[in-house]
């Protein structure tokens, strides 16, 4: 049974100009899968993430996560659902400036009223894994962008969610830091069997995934699966992107060495 299933989802934004952000989109994500979602600007990628996390409701169609429809939950249950089942990684990290690294990581557990001893143990485990022990007592302003994103990943994982949603996690990082973060995500995906759904513009980032889903104008366009060598996978992604068209500026011109 798929962990996420999107069935004929339509999302329409009413406004001065009615805008159809998603148009009869359907796909499934299996447990433990690392999925990348690609598409030109305005193709509905972020809207898709908002629907999965229950921040937005679909106009029609169904979103099921572990068999639950987030739009059917009451607000408090939805919040509880999010903080137990979902983890979030953002393009601009979104760490809270006034909290230390450690406090940022522990925040989701705090919201769930876990005992302090349990929280300490979990933080210790995750920070050892991500190599953050040295900076636990620093503020987000005092660490580098790559470190910030790793802290954000620690925060997204500390409560052991079943799905992690990542919105352009490498968008604000240099290529080295980006590769580290992607390697990390890949390792966690393999070892913990955590499901990842990552929205990205960057074909390099996409090439770390099991499957890449392309959407255009809110509708399903195509998908390709990983093969043995990342380099050929990357090339196939690029080919698909050029087929897809869209704004050239959206695509990274950097190729793998």
């Amino acid at each position, binding site marked *: 049974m798929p962990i996420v299933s999107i069935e004929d989802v339509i999302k329409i934004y009413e406004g001065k100009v009615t805008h159809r952000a998603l148009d009869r989109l359907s796909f499934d994500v299996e447990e433990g899968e690392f999925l990348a979602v690609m598409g030109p600007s305005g193709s509905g990628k972020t809207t898709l993430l908002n629907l999965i996390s229950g921040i937005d409701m679909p106009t029609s169609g169904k979103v099921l996560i572990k068999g639950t429809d987030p739009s059917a939950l009451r607000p408090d249950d939805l919040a509880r659902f*999010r903080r137990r089942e979902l983890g979030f990684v953002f393009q601009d990290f979104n760490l*809270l400036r006034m909290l230390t690294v450690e406090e940022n990581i522990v925040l989701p557990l705090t*919201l769930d009223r876990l005992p302090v001893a349990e*929280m300490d143990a979990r933080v210790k485990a995750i920070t050892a894994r991500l190599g953050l022990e040295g900076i636990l007592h620093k503020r987000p302003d005092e660490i580098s962008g790559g470190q910030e994103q790793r802290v954000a990943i620690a925060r997204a994982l500390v409560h052991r969610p079943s799905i992690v949603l990542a919105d352009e996690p490498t968008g604000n990082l240099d290529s080295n830091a980006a590769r580290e973060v992607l390697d990390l995500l890949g390792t966690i995906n393999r070892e913990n069997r955590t499901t990842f759904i990552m929205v990205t513009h960057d074909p390099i980032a996409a090439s770390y995934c099991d499957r890449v889903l392309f959407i255009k104008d809110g509708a399903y366009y195509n998908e390709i699966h990983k093969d043995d060598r990342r380099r050929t996978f990357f090339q196939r992604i690029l080919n698909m992107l050029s087929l897809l068209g869209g704004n050239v500026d959206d695509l990274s011109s950097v190729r793998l060495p």
Partner: protein
Amino acid sequence: MTFRQFAYRNVVRNRRIYAAFFLASVFSVMVFFLYSMLMFHPGIGERFITGITLIGMTAADVVLYVFMLFFLFYSMRAFMQARSGEFALLLQIGMERRQLGKLLLLEMLLLGAASTASGIVLGFAFSKYFFMIVRELLQLPTLPLYVSWEPFLMTAGAFFSLFLLIGLLSAYIVSNRDISEFRKGIGGEADPFGYSPGRAAAGILLLLSSYGAALLAGRVNVLYLSVLLPPAATLGTYYFFSHSILYLLDLFRDQKSLYWKRTRLVSLAETAAKLRDNANMFFIVAIVSTVAFLSVGTLASLATYTAQYRALNPLGLVYESYPGNPHEYEHVTGLMKELENAGLEYTHVPLTVAREESSFSGQPINILREGEVNLLAETLGAGPVQLRPGEAVFLPYSTEAAPRLQDADIQTELEESGVEVHVKGVVGGLLLPAYSLGTNSVVVSETDFVKVASAQTDSLLHIHAFDVPDWEETVGIGLSIEQAMVMSEIQQGEALPYYFKNPGLDYSIIRSTFHLLLLTGLLVAMVFLLAAGSFIYFKLYTMLDRDRRQAAVLKRLGMTEREFIKIVNRQLIPQFFLPWGIAMLHSTFAFISLQAIWKEFADISILNEMALVLVGFTVIQLLYFYLIRWRYLAHVKGPA
């Protein structure tokens, strides 16, 4: 980290943002506490800490409370606006809305508890000085410090309930919003890039017509004005900041020769953006400052009245005896004895006054005797009059009335005695105040007075005027007579056959009351100004990150220190002096109408006090500006 720790850290580590807000709250609690200390003073009811003091303190406390309600509410909205991104994130990582509400409530209670406690501690520490000042103002022998639970409980209860109310309100507001609403930002629903021409015009029209009406005050019904003007001016100010200014900038933008010039293009666009963002804040600051200026100005103008009191009351004591008064001798000798016992020098001048109807006006007039009036004039240092039989001069009832009477030239017959007199000119200087004789008095020559007096021996008035050089020291003199008068007024019995007035006593009551009110008003105005400053400070801080980045870029581009300060000035000056300028304009026009109203019934000028108050506030504003700019520059240039 528990949930409570999270709330605590949110506040403590953001202390820079909350600093000004905290300061304003602490100061307000302190002032509130000081007033409460006076309200619950065990010595209340003795001497002058009575009626008006109590009312003044209570009113100030109520004003402070209501003001703090609005201040806290607006600050809370501003905080929420600035933190809406953070709230969106918290909700996204799974915080329940109820938890978010609880977080805000906890933070508000934390701030409230801290500022209430600090305010009370500070207030108690300063209460000794406060009492010393009050004692000095009220000229009390002692005003001892006391410890009692009432002021503590009242202040703590009042402010804690206030913070609780605001905390609950913010919890309620926050728990009714979606993530998407927070992402858009609270209060961002109005179109930020537009103004309505109708409202822009309405703003300007409302302000201009309010100013016009203020200029006409005194000629129009004062009551109408006081009801209609403040709301009209407030609405006008609101429209002015939210619409008219943008309209005026747009007009300027059309003048390309002026606008497309060097850096103006950028700086004007930036100013417009800041004005749009901060229109509400400017409005609140302008109104709050106006209220502060006006309350102090009004009280200062009342203090003017006491300064002119002496001019209106040249005599130390006045005792009037009406025909058939059995106590005259007893009272007058009593007063002399009391003056001697108090060691006060005095000159006693008895005056005889006859009353007759004048054929010219058909009104009764008072007739005084040349010799006696000259004696009084000599005592008070005024020039004597020389009258021949048939001649008379007016005795002016106020200094302002003298020039008018000077030009009068009246031929009249005193009807009962049949004496014909020609009234021309006035006695130099004010000798007897209006209350003792009324407004219609003449002095006649000795011969004429004898004729008048012989016609009505049994209906002559006797006025005993006491000139006391140390007239402010006469507070305790004649208290028994004063009390008898008060008693008869309360019992509404027969009118007493005598009247006694001790200007020294009245003066000390008026003076101390006004000064106490002025002190009260000053402290409240301080709270207002601090609060207004705290809005500006908070807005600056929410912008600080962006400004700091901009500063770093500009520095790399090779901008000199002086140019940098110039840019900062250009950003800060509108924020500080635009609301201030409007507040000054409002206050000036309000003072003009106030002057007109004063003129109606007290005939005094408040120009000097007005100028003093406005200049004083300007100086404070300038100091405040340099203080904030100094801190701001330090932060923008300093490390993150």
